[in-house]
């Protein structure tokens, strides 16, 4: 049974400007949401492609329900592409909760380097100064979470073990203190404790690089980040 609130729902403070608005106040959170119905373009993203082998590493949005950012790599090992939002627009802060969620599938679970998350702008984002990312590195299908505040570089235990061409939903919840809860397919897997999150702005980023010869594809279905203001 559907509950109807025909006059709307409001979460604004009494006597505030939005008090009588019949919808929830969207300004309470800084939100990034991309369902990838449109191709990430250079005006909005810094795209760093490596194409040593035949073919060209690129991101496209194919005909597929739900919208996908499809990374196609050229055919050499270490070919692939990273995309980072052109500006660093998220700073994690004590006292402000932050949620991050993405859905991804990779062509070769073990022979690949890939990441999704927030990092300081860097064309080699696995080495960015500040990182708050899910990542997997060549030689292992394990996905873990990496928080690097430029003083301490912390890795979680394995959050998920990837399989070739199989989607997983990954999510991280920062409690505004020193804890990051990590989820795979909406199940809490592990919790990082005593964490100091990066103290400067970071950009949304994702990318996939071959760990072996042969063209591959990786699909990023969506990326969501929301932080309390």
């Amino acid at each position, binding site marked *: 049974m559907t509950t109807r609130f025909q006059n709307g729902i409001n979460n604004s403070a009494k006597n505030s400007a939005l008090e009588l608005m019949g919808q929830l106040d969207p300004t309470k959170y800084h939100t990034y949401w991309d369902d990838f119905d449109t191709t990430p373009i250079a005006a909005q993203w810094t795209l760093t492609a490596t194409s040593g082998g035949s073919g060209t590493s690129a991101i496209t949005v194919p005909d597929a329900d739900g919208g996908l950012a499809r990374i196609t790599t050229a055919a050499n090992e270490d070919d692939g592409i990273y995309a980072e939002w052109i500006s660093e627009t998220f700073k994690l802060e004590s006292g402000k909760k932050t949620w991050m969620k993405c859905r991804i599938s990779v062509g070769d679970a073990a022979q690949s380097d890939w990441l999704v998350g927030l990092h300081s702008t860097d064309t080699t984002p696995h080495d960015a100064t500040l990182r708050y990312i899910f990542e997997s590195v060549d*030689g292992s299908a394990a996905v873990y979470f990496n928080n690097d505040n430029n003083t301490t570089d912390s890795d979680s235990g394995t959050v998920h073990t990837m399989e070739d061409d199989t989607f997983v939903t990954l999510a991280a919840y920062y409690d505004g203190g020193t804890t990051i809860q990590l989820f795979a397919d909406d199940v809490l897997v592990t919790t990082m404790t005593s964490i100091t999150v990066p103290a400067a702005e970071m950009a949304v980023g994702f990318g996939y690089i071959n760990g072996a010869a042969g063209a591959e594809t990786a699909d990023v279905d969506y990326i969501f980040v929301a932080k309390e203001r």
Partner: protein
Amino acid sequence: MQTNLTMVGDKWAVEIIGGPDEETLTKTFSGREQATNQIRLWGNGQSEMPILKSVKPKKVATVKK
């Protein structure tokens, strides 16, 4: 299991944090690359993760009657 990599003096320290009932273990390395390689080997199972000691339960003070 969580690892924290930090520079301590001129060395790189890797803290290995287990569950709440396990003691944190710190291993030091002369270089960052050596430390990150070891973390990677632990992560993909090519090297056995150190076994963490169990935290000894604190003695509960007994009240004399």
